[in-house]
């Protein structure tokens, strides 16, 4: 084989979101927060449950945004960490009688460690190769969860049932409503922490790596450390989401965490706008509600309708919800001038 090597001038695969545009303006943030706080007071329990699911997936999509939009590493394997977090919580609640809230940080830490460990060999891979590796992880997970020798803990193919917590201190709200506010508090905490992370020095280091790894390394950024940390942090946050998911759904089973989940989280990231943290919840809403919409339009062709709706979204806003936000922002700016 010829000794000539292919010289590639790399264009960044992920376009940068300018730092000040990383979050919503203060006014918008407050409005959204208010909406999120008041909404459940006016709707039925089932809708509250769906909103909780949106928040949970929003956390997972946010984690993926940090990894891909932040450090430029592509992952189709988030479902594995989600599953790990879910099972950690489930096992601790059901087998160790632990308080559900305490299981979440534990799930987060365990997933952080596994994510970090996975990130180490992943350093040698990028782009399509990393995609394949993470894909392998995602397809392996359901099978690993079905393995015979841990069945005593995991419940094997049938999985585990998880007890749903009541509102604490006898607060007068349903389980669903309590769980919603609990999840919301955690989601806000994670969101704020993530925004701070991405706008901090570490965040800038991450994004320098995303845009031009070689230059970043030449400037003294410890590329290996940051990339593996990014994997770890992303996995950890996804694990927390998984734990919350287990509690909300009251159930964990291997086939709930297939590659389909990983693909959905990826779609959520794209629809929300890669690297734009506020978009995570919009992406999550897309993956929770649009499949239902598709099915109501046509039961037999629900997959096709979903695909068509997805195409419509990416044709109209190839950069995701972030594009809509920018357009809205500039329109408001123009209106203000007049």
């Amino acid at each position, binding site marked *: *084989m*010829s000794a*000539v*090597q*292919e*010289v*590639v*001038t*790399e264009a960044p*695969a*992920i*376009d940068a979101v300018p730092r000040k545009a990383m979050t919503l303006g203060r006014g918008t943030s407050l409005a959204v927060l208010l909406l999120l706080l008041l909404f459940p007071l006016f709707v039925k329990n089932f809708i509250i449950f769906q909103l909780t699911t949106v928040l949970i997936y929003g956390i997972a999509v946010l984690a993926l945004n940090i990894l*891909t939009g932040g450090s430029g590493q592509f992952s189709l394997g988030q479902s594995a960490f989600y599953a790990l977090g879910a099972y950690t919580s489930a096992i601790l609640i059901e087998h160790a009688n632990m308080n559900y809230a305490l299981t979440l940080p534990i799930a987060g830490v365990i997933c952080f460690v596994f994510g970090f460990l996975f990130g180490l*060999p992943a350093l*040698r*891979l990028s782009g*399509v*190769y990393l*995609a*394949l*590796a993470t*894909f*392998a*992880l995602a*397809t*392996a997970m*359901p*099978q*690993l969860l*079905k*393995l015979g020798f841990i069945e005593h803990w995991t419940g094997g193919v049938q999985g585990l049932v998880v007890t749903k917590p009541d509102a604490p201190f006898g607060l007068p709200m349903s389980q669903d409503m309590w769980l919603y506010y609990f999840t919301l508090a955690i989601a806000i905490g994670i969101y704020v922490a993530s925004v701070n992370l991405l706008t901090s020095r570490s965040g800038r280091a991450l994004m320098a790596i995303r845009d*031009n790894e*070689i*230059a970043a390394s*030449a400037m003294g950024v410890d590329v290996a450390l940051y990339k593996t940390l990014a994997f770890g942090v992303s996995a950890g946050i996804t694990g927390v989401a998984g734990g919350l998911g287990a509690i909300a759904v009251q159930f964990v089973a291997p086939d709930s965490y297939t590659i389909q989940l990983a*693909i959905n989280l*990826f*779609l959520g*990231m*794209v*629809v929300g706008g*890669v690297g734009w943290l506020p978009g995570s919840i919009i992406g999550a809403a897309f993956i929770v509600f649009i499949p239902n919409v598709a099915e109501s339009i046509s039961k*037999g*062709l*629900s*997959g*096709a*309708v*979903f*695909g*068509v709706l*997805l*195409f419509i979204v*990416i*044709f109209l806003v*190839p*950069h*995701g919800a972030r594009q809509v936000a920018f357009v809205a922002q500039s329109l408001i700016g123009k209106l203000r001038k007049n």
Partner: protein
Amino acid sequence: MELFTNQVLAGIATGAIYACMALAVVMIYQAIDHLNFAQGEMAMFSTFISWQLMQWGIPYWWAFLLTLAISFAGGIVIERLLFKPLAKAPILTNVAGFIALFAIINSVAGLIWDFTIKQYPTPFGSSPFLGSQLISTHQAGMIGVTVILLILLYMFFQFTRVGLAMRAAAAMPESARLVGINTSWMIALGWGMAAAIGSIAGILIAPVVFLEPNMMGGVLIYGFAAAVLGGLTSPLGAVVGGFLVGVFENLAGTYIPGVGNELKLPIALALIITVLVVKPAGLFGRPIIKRV
């Protein structure tokens, strides 16, 4: 030792499936520089079209040729309608497009032809090949067709003007435009060819895995893995990669304890990734230097 050789041979036989799929994957990669996740579904749909033509009484080889032509045209139409508008969009958005295409094709196929398994004929018969219990005549036929395809592709890229233009457009699109190559149409052509190759893969695979809308799911992943293993720019690598993946998969299933059918895929992928960590550009790929 005999078990080992048998498993290796059996692996090569199943590997022909992956090799064929991998060729289609490399084809599309040459054209658009990424992997099309809907490739397998397109191949499945083409296979259904050929089946339908035969149901309507058209003989096998006519159905084959007609399907090839329809697939070629279909690939071009899909690219022009759905992906040309996304040409300036970020890569990840295009990937979302592939996923959407996957969902659409899978769903439509399920609606038209439903999800029950169908038998699919083979022109090669299924008796043991040269008396061997491990390779059937069909599998030998698959290997033969794959090798022929590989040679044809090689000749296309090395010795024809269009092949040269396609290689140039994929390698350095701006320079290609500066010699008058319409890079946009090269992409469309690449899609058409990949769809046609995919249809051949589907037609060869269907007799073995039976025809149903979800038949290509596992095959596609192995096809990707094989293409990546071989080095994404090398058709020869794709074919060798396909055979290797078949062998890995079989050996893993035979020798690693506890590996049932479900874990074969992740194990095979893990093996491939190990190779990639050592040889990041694949076995036959050119090592890539990144210029700052």
